[in-house]
């Protein structure tokens, strides 16, 4: 899936969604890089916010409309595709049959249920967070641990045959996880607002990208607010409320 180049006619179009606030162009990039789940993006709200800033009389009005319609259509196609079966690595090449309305309904119903369960789990995990266990443990006797050699072989097979995607060699090794960066960001904003630039000044490209994704996910869960006074201007992270 690729988007037609926008010709930057929409470079000043910014969106305010629950999951993301910032330049529309960045939103597209994040979706393409799988850093934002297309499921999380309310397309209707996206269209509505475009209609609010639409400038039919402007010199490039038609170009803007066309660019937006083109990219929005691609988003709709992408979102609908994600509802159809994911192509398994092993079953690649098997013809992807179109879903009937009934199958689609069934699939959506099942997904909706999983979505609700996920919300329930989220609440439950939050309610049960913050339990720390005793530090007064005694070590079991030395030598009582048994490790199965077969499990070690199996682990070698798993670790050595894993296809690691996406290839990020050109970006350098990933040294931090999204969770760790989220932790770093939480600590950094504890003292007040901080700019994305200074937060990431000594990070490499990969970590900056991950930091951005981490900031988005923290913003989504309400732990911080992202503000950007002007399109493509400096981005500020601050604690919510």
């Amino acid at each position: 899936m690729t988007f037609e180049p926008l010709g930057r006619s929409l470079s000043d179009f910014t969106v305010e969604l629950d999951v993301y606030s910032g330049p529309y162009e960045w939103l597209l990039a994040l979706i393409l890089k799988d850093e934002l789940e297309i499921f999380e993006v309310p397309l209707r709200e996206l269209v509505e916010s475009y209609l609010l800033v639409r400038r039919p009389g402007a010199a490039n009005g038609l170009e803007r409309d066309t660019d937006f319609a083109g990219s929005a259509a691609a988003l709709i196609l992408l979102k609908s595709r994600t509802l159809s079966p994911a192509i398994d690595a092993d079953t690649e090449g098997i013809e992807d049959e179109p879903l009937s309305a009934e199958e689609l309904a069934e699939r959506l119903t099942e997904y909706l249920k999983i979505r609700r369960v996920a919300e329930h789990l989220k609440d439950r995990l939050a309610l049960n967070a913050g339990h720390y266990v005793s530090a007064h443990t005694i070590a079991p006797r030395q030598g009582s641990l048994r490790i199965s050699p077969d499990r070690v072989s199996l682990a070698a097979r798993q670790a050595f045959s894993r296809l690691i995607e996406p290839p990020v060699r050109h970006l350098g090794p990933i040294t931090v996880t999204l969770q760790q960066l989220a932790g770093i960001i939480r600590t950094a904003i504890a003292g007040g607002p901080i700019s994305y630039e200074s937060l990431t000044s000594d990070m490499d490209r990969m970590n900056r990208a991950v930091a951005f994704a981490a900031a988005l996910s923290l913003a989504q869960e309400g732990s911080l607010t992202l503000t950007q006074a002007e399109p493509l201007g400096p981005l500020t992270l601050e604690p919510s409320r």
Partner: protein
Amino acid sequence: MRDQDQRPRPAHLVEAVLLVSARLIGSSDLRSATGLSDQELESALAGLRERYAPETSGIVLREVAGGHLLSTNPACSAAVERFRREARPAPLSGAAHEVLACALYLGPLTRGAVSRVRGVNSEAVIRSLIERNLLVEVGADHDAPGSPALLGVTDEFLAATGASSRKDFPPVNSLVTQEELDRVHERLASSGTDPPDAGSEPS
């Protein structure tokens, strides 16, 4: 300081054993360590439940995933985190919650099945959940080509959700209303998709 002449009370024995474990202890392990009978253990635990209730103590007795465990009261977590100078682990992503939901309600199931239900490749999320010990490979689907691994939730997951067992979750139909389900069908009907024809079902 020792009153060896006086046998310690059952609840004290259980309490002492619970202090030295950072992992859940099952009832049978508690019995064999303390030498208590079923009934003695049950009444000792009943007393400890009260002594270590969230309303009355900074240490709470948790009974989750079929085991018993002392841990700090979440109401005191800020002090604990300050003492240990570490932030609380970041909460899981929405995608991770969905994958866990699949494993809990539809599992054990394969990676492919998770991806099919969610409609997106879930490999990376699954790997991070395995890394966090919330998901585990519990076997293999020998009917499928390549016998892909089957995934299920772990006891750590149950403990993290405060569940006493896998049964300790509401039925899915209580979480989603018929109205919501009807809306899905309605929307699809009004979008004028192709007439239905039989095909494979989501597994």
